Structures are given as structure tokens and as C-alpha cells.
């Protein structure tokens, strides 16, 4: 379980997160939505320590990660992350992208790591791209390899930071399909997204953020059909 308490984050003079309090339960899927600059990505990046909060607590399985930077590398093995810009290692092929952390962090043998990489590439439908380099892959394939890379670490939580924002509609579909398959895997999934239909379809809870605050947390049915807050209503009117 991830528990966020009184979280603040400031960049210079700008307050990006203002008193965030939320709990993420194990095995559930969360969609964080809101307009650009609302602090969605910053909140997500705080959850695995890529951003250091100004104050507050993030407790993951009983450990406060904000005040224990030494435990971050170990903790990050449990929390996978998928980025908007894929961030594959440009000088490594698809398989090596996956085996690198398995061998360096999990100390797996090369043979075992390769086998697991192939398994995960098959799972995301990229087993025909094992020896391709990132520049030889389409955007959708890059993102699916990046998902395979995160999954291979066998995380209990996986964070998606606008995973389809850099993709065209066709490729978006193939990536969302892979993500949808993960929702029954027992992992906690937290997605920052602009894909309203996807959020509606797969998430257990929608978290609506605006101006650095969480405005509304509700199941998709309630959020989309009986929107509670004025700000969310306005946001949805603009979106749909």
C-alpha cells in the first residue's frame, strides 16, 4: 500500500503540489487526470523518488521514502515506471534493454535474464523485435518494449506517466491494449493519462487534479456521470 500524507512540492516559487493526501490500495488501478500543469506527473514522479517532495510523507509498505533516500534503489525494484518518451537505452537492442537491470540489479545470469526478456517481449507482442535497436522500432513498439522492461523486474506497483501522449492514435490502441491486460495481474497500477475512455474503462478510481490539488476521487461511473466538483465538470466539458 502507498500512503501519501500532506505532500507539498515547490519548484522555486511555484507550488506544484499542495497538501496531497491519498492512499493507493494494492492491486487496484488508478487513473490520474487533469489539465497540463495540474501536478499529475509530479505526483507520480514523487512516488518513486524521481522528484523529491518539499515536505510531507510517502509511505510505501511501511517505509517513508521521502526521508530514506538510501532505500530508494531497493524500493524502485518494486515500483516499475513507464515514461512518455519511452527512455529506452539507445545503444542497446530490445533484449539488452530488458536484461541490463535484471543482471545488474537482480544479479540474474545472462541466460535466465534473456529467457525472461523473451517471455516479457512475447507478453507485449514484441517477440519479433528482440534484436532491434530503439531507433528501428515504431513508437508503439518502443513503448511496449519499455513496458516489458518494467514488467521484467516483477514490480508490485507500476507507474505510467502519460504513456501514450507521444503516440499516434493507431499506436495508442496497441499500447492501451497491453496496459489493459495488466489490470488483472494483481499489480497496483497508477496511470497519468489524457485518454478519458481508457480511464473510464479500466480504472477502479479516478483521481482528478487541478492546480496542484486533488479535487475529486471517485469510481469512473460516478466521476463521469455524476461529477461532483465544479472544476471537474468544467474540465470534462472541455475534454469531451
Amino acid at each position, binding site marked *: 500500500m502507498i500512503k501519501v500524507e500532506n505532500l507539498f512540492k515547490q519548484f522555486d516559487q511555484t507550488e506544484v503540489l499542495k497538501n496531497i493526501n491519498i492512499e493507493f490500495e494494492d492491486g487496484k488501478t488508478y487513473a490520474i487526470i487533469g489539465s497540463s500543469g495540474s501536478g499529475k506527473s509530479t505526483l507520480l514522479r514523487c512516488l518513486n523518488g524521481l522528484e523529491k517532495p518539499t515536505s510531507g510523507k510517502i509511505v510505501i509498505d511501511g517505509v517513508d521514502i521521502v526521508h530514506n533516500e538510501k532505500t530508494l534503489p531497493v524500493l524502485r525494484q518494486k515500483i516499475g515506471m513507464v*515514461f512518455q518518451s519511452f*527512455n529506452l*537505452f*539507445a545503444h542497446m537492442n530490445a533484449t539488452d534493454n530488458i536484461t541490463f537491470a535484471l543482471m545488474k540489479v537482480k544479479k540474474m545470469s545472462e541466460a535466465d535474464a534473456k529467457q525472461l526478456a523473451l517471455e516479457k517481449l512475447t507478453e507485449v507482442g514484441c517477440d519479433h523485435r528482440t534484436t532491434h535497436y530503439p531507433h528501428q522500432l515504431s513508437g508503439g513498439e518502443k513503448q511496449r518494449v519499455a513496458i516489458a522492461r*518494467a514488467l521484467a523486474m516483477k514490480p508490485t506497483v507500476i507507474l505510467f506517466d502519460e504513456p501514450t501522449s507521444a503516440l499516434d492514435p493507431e499506436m495508442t490502441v496497441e499500447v492501451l491494449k497491453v496496459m489493459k491486460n495488466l489490470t488483472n495481474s494483481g499489480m497496483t497500477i497508477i496511470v497519468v493519462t489524457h485518454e478519458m475512455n481508457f480511464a473510464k474503462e479500466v480504472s477502479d478510481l479516478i483521481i482528478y487534479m487541478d492546480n496542484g490539488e486533488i479535487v475529486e476521487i471517485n469510481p469512473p461511473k460516478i466521476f463521469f456521470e455524476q461529477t461532483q466538483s465544479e472544476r471537474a465538470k468544467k474540465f470534462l466539458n472541455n475534454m469531451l
Partner: protein
Amino acid sequence: MIDFTKIYEYIPFIIQGVLITIQLALVGAVGGSILGFIFGLTSRKKNIFGYIVRGIIDFFRGTPLVFQLAFFHYGIPQMVKAFLGVSFVPTAMFSASVIFIINSSAYLAEILRAGIESIDKGQIEAAKALGVKSSDYMLHIIIPQAVRNVLPAIVNEFITLTKETSIASIIGVSELMRRATIITGTTFRYFEPLLIVGITYYIMNKILSNVGKAVEKRLKYD
């Protein structure tokens, strides 16, 4: 009259000079690469070592090589004698080696730093998010790509270094350029020995730049 026959007997003498030039360039390139690598990584740090290394780099890039050679070879021994009372008399080759190593390391460190900064931060974040230690992602993710990106600049630095070894003649290293002057002194001919020496430098650097291109091709992944 142009007459190369007078120069024939000096060919072995010139070849010895080539060997000394190559030796100096190699010591500068290998030593400079190792030290430049250490400097390049340290200069990014915001601690006392970072300050010191940035100071060294700044000094060696901000003063002429001729000065550095003369200062180390003639100035430092005098200072050592005055303050420590011991006599320190380096050979010209030793002084030249030390200065070429440090001088080229200063430039290589800057090249490497630029290479590291050229790598998109996203890959570092991805590595961190996977729990990879910073030493592992620097060594296996960032540096290989950084070196590959700045390889043309590194080869350029090696070519400059090879040419600059000629400046070591002013402290008396009998490398290629100094030998041309010596031949002139005994034969009273300028054109012939200088032409031969010029062509020799050109051939050495042509080989170097072709090796660089071949390495670049081998390291290509996109």
C-alpha cells in the same frame, strides 16, 4: 636549386625523430585519455575535487602550451631548488610527457563532459527507476553513448596533440621538427628537410584520422 640528394644521409635521423614524435603523441593520448576521463567525471561534481579539477582544466586551457612546457621544464626546477633545497632536473622528454598528458587531459575532460551532457536525462531516469546504481548506469549507459557521440572531437584532439608535439622542440626534445632545424644547421638547406617533415606529419595525421573514422563506424548503432 632544389636538391634532395644532400638530405639522403639524414633519413635515419629523421626516422628517429618520427619515433620520438609518435612516442610523445602516444604518451599524451593514452595518459591524457585516462586523466581526462577522471577529470571529466570529477569536474561535474559540486565538491572540493570538482573545484580543483575545474581550476586545473581552466589553467591548462587558458595558457599557451609553449609557456606550460617552459614553465615546467625551467621554472619548476628553480622553485623546487629554492623552496625544498633539492635538485630536480627533469629530462626534456619527461617534462614534455607530463605537460602533454595534463594539457590533452584538460581538453579531453571538456569533450567528455559535453558528451555526457548530450545524453538525454530520460535514460538516466529510466535506469534509476529500475533500481540501477549510479556507477552502473554511468559506466554502461551514459559513457558508452557519450564517447560515441564525441568521438570525432576526440580524434580531432589527438590530431592537434600530434601536431603540437613539435612545440616540445623549444625545450630540446629532439622530435621531428627539431631535427629539421638541426639538418638545416648542417646543410644550410631549408626547403628540403622542412618539406619532408611536413609531409611526414601529414601522413601520420591522415592515418590517425582514418583509424578514427573506422572506430566511429564500428561503434555505430543507429
